[in-house]
């Protein structure tokens, strides 16, 4: 598969939007009233008009967008990288310096977006001009490219040379300052559109995306029928008021705030910051005593409890006391079917039926008759989700009944009381006292060992 990173189509569509936005910034910068103050800059012995310093650019951006210096430097830097502003000193280094270095706006004629993509012909003409002007003293890579182009578009070479000569003649009739400016502009354009080897290629856009879907879709009756069907279904769905949904976000964020290490830190310390893995050790899947935050989290929702292996274990213990452990076992067995191997579905479904659903089963679960009938019928042709309805029924049963009681039970309360709240350990003050970063056993290793042991047993 060939990758044409400079192809039109997808690239064009996406990047044009970026270019337009950058151009808006540039135009604002040149606004006579609100734009930047420009001055004449001295370059060797010539005076270049309408130039500005790097510092000017940064200050203007800081003021216009109310941003800090670092961000202004970054944004300005992007404008330079994309060729909207070019440096007068050191033209090959497309970097914005926050000092008195002179810069100039690129003329719209030479904006990358104006003549996209840059053609080989234009590049050949440019190199030919340079070749003539410098009497063969091109840079190494330019020489190579020149000869490659010479071979490739040999048939139009006369035209190339003629154009080059014409343009050189025309430019000789300009004032020296203008001539230098034009040369700088043209050079800046080609530095971006044909970067030297090893230099950063700003126009590298990665893998070409497939064409725009909507332009490929034929607006035929099928398409409209699908849209109509979709709209009808959508109109039929229940919607919730925004105020309720949005309140939900606020509540959720509040509830989980103390559990969010990025927001509120974590105890004893964030391993990434302190190099101390105590936090992870204390929160592995199975620990003798869980942390307080972890146990609190089980009360947030039934899914939180079920998602935590320890929580599930505790809940199972509770259910055993209540003689309703078969519910959780059933739920777990159904999950196993849903997420397990294809080849074992039939066997697992049979097991589940035998243990939980058959009349007189050892761990019979209490499902309403309608769901039971549906499930039994489905079992005739078992598939991954044949237990869905029954599983859902039991899930809601546990959620509405057992779960709230578990949270009020002594078992849970004791767990909460026992749970540890680790001491905060601050990062060591002395930067050179960096802790040893220990590696941890790979999960793959744990499983390999377990299966080895199984094999032996």
């Amino acid at each position, binding site marked *: 598969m060939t990758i044409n990173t400079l192809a039109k189509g*997808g690239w064009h569509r996406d990047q044009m939007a*970026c270019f337009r936005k950058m151009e808006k910034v540039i135009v604002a910068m040149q606004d006579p009233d609100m734009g930047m103050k420009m001055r004449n800059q001295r370059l060797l012995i010539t005076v270049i008009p309408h130039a500005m310093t790097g510092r000017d650019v940064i200050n203007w951006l800081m003021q216009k967008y109310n941003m800090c210096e670092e961000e202004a430097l970054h944004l300005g830097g992007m404008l330079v990288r994309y060729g909207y502003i070019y440096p007068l000193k050191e033209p090959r280094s497309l970097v914005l310096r926050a000092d008195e270095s002179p810069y100039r706006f690129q003329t719209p004629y030479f904006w990358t977006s104006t003549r996209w993509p840059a053609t080989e012909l234009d590049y050949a003409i440019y190199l030919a001009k340079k070749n003539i002007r410098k009497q063969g003293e091109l840079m190494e890579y330019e020489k190579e490219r020149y000869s490659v182009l010479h071979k490739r578009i040999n048939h139009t070479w006369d035209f190339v040379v003629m154009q080059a000569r014409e343009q050189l003649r025309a430019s000789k009739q300009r004032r020296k300052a203008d001539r230098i400016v034009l040369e700088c502009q043209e050079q800046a354009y080609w530095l971006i559109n044909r970067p030297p080897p090893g230099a950063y290629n700003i126009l590298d856009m990665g893998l070409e995306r497939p064409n725009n879907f909507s332009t490929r879709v034929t607006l035929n009756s099928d398409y409209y029928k699908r*849209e109509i069907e979709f709209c009808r279904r959508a*109109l039929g769905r229940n919607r919730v008021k925004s105020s309720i949904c*949005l309140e*939900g976000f606020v509540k959720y964020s509040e509830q989980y705030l103390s559990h969010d*290490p990025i927001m509120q830190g974590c105890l004893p310390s964030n391993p990434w910051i302190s190099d101390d893995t105590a936090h992870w050790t204390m929160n592995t899947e199975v620990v003798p005593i869980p942390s307080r935050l972890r146990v609190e989290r089980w009360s947030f929702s039934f899914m939180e409890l079920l998602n935590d292996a320890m929580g599930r274990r505790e809940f199972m213990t509770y259910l055993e006391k209540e003689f309703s452990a078969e519910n959780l076992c059933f739920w777990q067995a159904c999950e196993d079917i849903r997420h397990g191997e294809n080849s074992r579905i039939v066997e697992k479904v049979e097991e589940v039926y035998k243990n939980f659903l058959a009349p007189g089963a050892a761990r019979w679960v209490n499902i309403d008759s309608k769901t039971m009938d549906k499930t039994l019928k489905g079992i005739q042709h078992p*598939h991954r989700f044949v237990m869905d309805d029954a599983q859902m029924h039991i899930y809601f049963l546990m959620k509405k009944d057992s779960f709230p009681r578990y949270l009020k039970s002594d078992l849970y309360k004791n767990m909460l009381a026992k749970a540890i709240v680790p001491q905060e350990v601050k990062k060591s003050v002395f930067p050179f006292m960096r802790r040893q970063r220990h590696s*941890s056993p790979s999960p793959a290793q744990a499983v390999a060992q377990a299966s080895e042991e199984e094999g032996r047993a």
Partner: protein
Amino acid sequence: MCKHYLYSILCISTSLCFKPFRCRSLPAQRKYMRSPPIPEMATQEVQLSETLAHLKTESDTLKGKLEEERAKLHDVELHQVAEKVEGLGQFVMKTRRTLKGHGNKVLCMDWCKDKRRIVSSSQDGKVIVWDAFTTNKEHAVTMPCTWVMACAYAPSGCAVACGGLDNKCSVYPLSLDKNENLAAKKKSVAMHTNYLSACSFTNSDMQVRLSRMGEDTCSSFVTALHHFFDLTELFKVFRHVLHDFMSLQGCDKKANVWDMRSGQCIQSFETHESDINSVRYYPSGDAFASGSDDATCRLYDLRADREVAIYSKESIIFGVSSVDFSLSGRLLFGGYNDYTINVWDVLKGTRVSILFGHENRVSTLRVSPDGTAFCTGSWDHTLRTWA
């Protein structure tokens, strides 16, 4: 049926043109009336185009109605609700680890459930498993293709899935024998057409959710793999109440929510102005965020069935390649094509911070499973962990 419908419209319109005294005679005459304005529907082509126009009108009308219905329940904006929430203080996050080793652009990464290991894939065809905490490389696989766009870590930590221009999704078990050639043990699923653009494991090692790039009806489907990766067939997945098998997809400017049971797209949002590059569920599962080339991130609520927030700034010009939420959902991290990461306050809609460090565009961003850090991969060949 269609003819009749058009006929009745015309009847109404013509009756309006007639002078009042004529209207009374209209009903009796209707049977025999030939509507003069429309020509005889002689050819089938004319018939079809009239049908098409009719369908288009109906489609547009319904779409308008849908927007109206959505708007009816929109009684408040997110930032209004968030006014009572405390603002966030000074935000300090730094690069804590830099992972160097890829020879070309890093395209994708995923965290292991152990909260410290990651897998990353790159344009040079390499897939590397790192212990990001120590920065050691633990496994390296060379894919038979370049541009490995997608990679994922299995929940057990024992395997990784990846794919790209080879039009396949391959699963490699992670062997600890350094001498073992991982490639020898891989198992693959063919994508038939087009390259793999994303993959992730569902709750278990047995299933990988895949999505292909470049299809009109971009489909996400689940492949079940036999234990220890013998290949099996693709099948349609069915809906589950707990959202396991609901899938998000950013396709062009639309963000779609797929119900895997029916293979149907059940919700669709089209408010972005440009291609969507990344979609991610809000931690509660009731909403999701998207990042697009139009330089904005947006939040869509699934229950309210609408866009509820836009995260953008005039000075942010470049597209978002990747988004993810912090654990509590209060922060949204966006990796941008201008090499930066912008951190947004999801509730208030403001930008909390901008992070610099990468030297080329950020292509992938994921928050760690326990929320202690997030990792970014970039075209500058490195990955960084931030905390």
